[in-house]
């Protein structure tokens, strides 16, 4: 890669990370704004994210991104300074900006193609600022003291005013820290203080000129009393002082109780300070909502409504809200801790990991060589001591090499939450586009999978969610009629089960009508009428995975032609996974995807056909048997055998692939080996010449040129640089089944 390309890809990687953070923050803000009030720290976090993106773009000369960041930053600044309210309309524009960033950051196939036009989004953003409320008359803050006021930035001053307006008292927490331990000390104090209110700023103390300690005055806005705060915080070198009484000159307007329906669109609210999480019982009294008074606006003494926000950002006692108020997903993360943990991670280029894996492989070879040397030594040198010594060392090395290999594999693991976040955005957009209210419940976002798998899952999951929202979830009136809650419910679940990971997508929509599917399949000729009659409901439902199947005749704007589940199935199969569906008409549908935890190393069955060696993922192998040739029947030119009372279509690999025999292998004419492979409910027997055993193999990606060979899933290394192709069982099964379906025979039971 040239120097320019290197810079570009670094920039893109960093920019994408920033946008991910921004997107997560927005999603949380949206959830908060629906159920109470938005956390100002989160808004500030969103501002800072775009601010840094702007700086980044400036350094790398990315003009479009820089321009968009600049305007977006102003909007976010207005939001955090309270000049603009966080309404649904505003959030829509912000999410749209994320989409535009996404497009700007996608590498283009044609370098001459012009950049996507950012003008429309810029116009929308600028239009928002025109909605800005005029500056309210400002309180006189003289009593706070010029000393403090003079060193506050505009944002901090705004926060100060907000705290005062919401009736909080202003406290000065004086703390002295040892210069060596100040990091830890500050974090601990910060965490303690945040429970009680909002930290406005940190002022270095006047007498902080000692060489081994630093003294700070921390401005805290809190509704707790001086006594409470002192009790909680004043320990050691920390003391608490009041700067203004709690009943400051602003009226607390009692607000009407919060409506029970969290999913109606929130009216525009101003960003106001959060109430402390702890006094949850008392806050229900304060838990007004913000602006549901029917006017957005100026009531009470200074024109601000009273707040209620569920919880401050870093509260450890209560996990952050999910997209919908009452569900608490695991791992949905508290914004502050998740931002912090971001800095403890390193972005790794998968190619570098591949390089490391290669090195481990080569070390393995060296190790083999050493073992050979050991053997040699044993023969030459009768003295057992040296040999034994060497053996001990080699064994140690083997152990450590295995650990190293596992360690590198572990680095490839990423939480599936990455994809879930993206899906949350998709749900949001679709729910708006299709005017269907959707509750998305996520659990198991922290479940880890190989990074490649997670990336490949993105598309199939998006497909399924689109289908679900478009075809599965009924429109509001219909749901009401059926007695279902107005918002459609989609659950995204991930959990580990043994050495596999299961991902489930479940909805409470209309379910899949197997009769309808069966009839359509018969109509389209994919299934004969006779087969249709004898078909069981579960078989019929699985027809949705058949190539080209589609429930809707016309494409909807959103999800295109129908279901497209065959594509989903193919993609999952490529990951050596399986997909299953259970559904009940009127109740809902559940898709279940089972995947191996890591793609990089799998167990494979090694076979040989016409002298060519191939691997089959062991996951897909149901059994391998030896079959006498006389057991094979031929029906309409296709070979089958009866296995377990069912007909099993046979596929000769050598014929399927038109393999030219590489060696004169002796083949016993009377018997063959059949490897029975299956995916979901279909099975096929692959006829091969030799079974060479099972072993762990490292999977390597095939380049774009060879990736799409039907029937080949990848390349594997059998060790010692022996490259062998990995078969795509899903595809082979399809070919086998298609061949079997072409068989019409009376008395042959349906393939299971």
């Amino acid at each position, binding site marked *: 890669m040239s120097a320019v390309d290197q810079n570009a890809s670094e920039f893109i990687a960093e920019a994408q990370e920033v946008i991910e953070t921004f997107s997560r923050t927005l999603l949380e803000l949206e959830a908060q704004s629906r159920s109470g009030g938005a956390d100002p720290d989160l808004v500030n976090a969103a501002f800072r994210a775009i601010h840094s993106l702007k700086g980044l773009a400036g350094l790398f000369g990315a003009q479009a991104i820089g321009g968009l960041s600049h305007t977006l930053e102003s909007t976010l600044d207005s939001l955090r300074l309270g000049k603009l309210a966080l309404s649904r309309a505003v959030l829509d524009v912000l999410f749209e900006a994320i989409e535009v960033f996404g497009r700007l950051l996608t590498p283009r196939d044609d370098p001459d193609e012009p950049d996507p036009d950012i003008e429309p989004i810029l116009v929308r953003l600028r239009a928002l600022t025109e909605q800005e409320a005029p500056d309210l008359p400002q309180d006189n803050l003289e009593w706070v003291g010029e000393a403090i006021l003079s060193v506050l930035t505009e944002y901090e001053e705004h926060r100060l005013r907000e705290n005062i307006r919401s009736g909080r008292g202003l406290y000065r927490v004086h703390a002295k820290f040892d210069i060596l331990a100040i990091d830890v000390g500050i974090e601990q104090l910060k965490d303690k203080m945040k429970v009680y209110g909002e930290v406005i700023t940190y002022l270095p103390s006047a007498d902080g000129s000692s060489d081994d300690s630093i003294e700070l005055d921390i401005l805290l806005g809190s509704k707790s009393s001086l006594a409470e705060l002192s009790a909680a915080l004043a320990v050691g070198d920390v003391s608490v002082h009041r700067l203004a009484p709690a009943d400051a000159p602003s009226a607390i307007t009692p607000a009407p109780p919060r409506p029970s329906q969290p999913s109606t669109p929130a009216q525009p609210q101003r960003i106001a300070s959060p109430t402390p999480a702890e006094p949850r019982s008392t806050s229900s009294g304060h838990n007004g909502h913000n602006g549901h008074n029917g006017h957005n606006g100026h009531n009470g003494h200074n024109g601000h409504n009273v707040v209620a926000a569920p919880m401050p950002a870093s509260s450890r006692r209560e996990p952050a809200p999910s997209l919908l108020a009452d569900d608490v997903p695991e791992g949905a993360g508290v914004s502050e801790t998740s931002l912090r943990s971001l800095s403890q991670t390193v972005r790794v280029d998968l190619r570098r990991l*591949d390089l490391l894996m290669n090195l481990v492989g080569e070390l393995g070879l060296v190790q083999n060589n050493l073992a050979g040397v050991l053997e040699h030594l044993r023969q030459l040198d009768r003295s057992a001591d040296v040999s034994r010594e060497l053996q001990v060392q080699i064994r140690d090395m083997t152990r450590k090499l295995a650990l190293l290999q596992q360690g590198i594999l572990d680095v490839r693991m990423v939480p599936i939450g990455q994809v879930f976040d993206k899906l949350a955005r998709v749900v949001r957009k679709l729910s708006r586009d299709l005017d269907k209210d959707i509750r998305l419940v996520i659990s198991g976002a922290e479940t880890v999978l190989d990074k490649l798998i997670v990336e490949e899952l993105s598309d199939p999951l998006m497909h399924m969610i689109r289908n679900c929202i478009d075809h599965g979830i009924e429109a509001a009136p219909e749901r009401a009629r059926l007695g279902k809650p107005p918002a459609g419910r989609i659950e995204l679940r991930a959990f580990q089960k043994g050495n596999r990971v299961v991902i489930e997508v479940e909805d409470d929509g209309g379910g899949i009508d197997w009769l309808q599917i069966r009839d359509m399949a018969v109509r389209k000729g994919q299934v004969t009428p006779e087969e249709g009659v004898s078909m069981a409901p579960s078989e019929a439902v699985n027809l949705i995975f058949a190539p080209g199947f589609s429930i809707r005749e016309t494409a909807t704007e959103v999800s295109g032609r129908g279901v497209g589940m065959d594509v989903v199935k193919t993609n999952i199969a490529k990951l050596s996974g399986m997909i299953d569906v259970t559904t009940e008409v009127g109740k809902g549908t559940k898709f279940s995807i089972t995947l191996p935890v890591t793609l990089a190393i799998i167990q494979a069955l090694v076979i040989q056909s016409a002298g060519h060696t191939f691997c089959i993922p062991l996951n897909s192998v149901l059994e391998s048997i030896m079959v006498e040739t006389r057991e094979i029947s031929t029906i309409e030119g296709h070979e089958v055998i009866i296995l377990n009372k069912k007909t099993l279509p046979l596929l000769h690999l050598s014929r399927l*692939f038109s393999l030219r025999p590489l060696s004169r292998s002796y083949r016993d004419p009377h018997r063959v080996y059949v490897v029975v492979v299956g995916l979901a409910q279909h099975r096929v027997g692959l006829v091969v010449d030799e079974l060479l055993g099972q072993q762990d193999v490292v999977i390597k990606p*095939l380049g774009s040129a*060879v990736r799409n060979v039907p029937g080949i899933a990848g390349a594997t290394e059998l060790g010692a640089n022996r490259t062998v192709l990995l078969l795509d069982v899903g595809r082979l099964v399809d070919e086998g089944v298609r*061949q079997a379906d072409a068989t019409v025979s009376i008395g042959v039971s349906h393939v299971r």
Partner: protein
Amino acid sequence: MSVEREDLWQALLRSGETIATDEDYEHGYKRDVPQDLQQYVSFRVSGEIYGLPIHEIEEISKVFGTTHVPRTADFLVGIGNVRGRIMPVVDLAKRLRLRPMERGRAARVLIVHLNDEPYGLVVDAVIDVIRIPPDKVEERPGGITGTRAEYIRGLGRRKGVAGPGKGLGGAEMKAGEEPEEIVIILNLATLLDPKDFVRVGPGEEGRG
């Protein structure tokens, strides 16, 4: 030595790297190639001379073993594994639809990069590195037709081996005369278009 001709050794020397020996080639010598828009590596395929910009070539390796891939075009020899990296290996003679010639010990595999992926190109022999200033690279003349044309980026000229012998167009040369040879500069992107690699033959679907 003329300014325009330098052999591989010289080019490597100038780029500041150490010279690779045959042994290195066996194990796959790799060097970082700086962007050089004027230098081309010339090589022979079925009697004709072709070239590729030097920065597209990552490595020149001796011929190594490959694994055949079913259902692919005939010009794909198979996939090879170089120090852990899997790459498709293309027989250039077959790809260019030239009459294949017997390959000897001079045969090499050029390891090139396209869209960040490695590919191997099997050639009969690597000749040398030539420098052709951009204004001297002729656009592919309209006269060349056929599928080969899409793979051609342009034509350059190179001083050939001194005579006697045959020069361009088969004319006889006198001793000492240096004939000019045409070097056909290839276009990697079309040469290695992924669409052309997969070939499912008739009757290969669902039959077994």
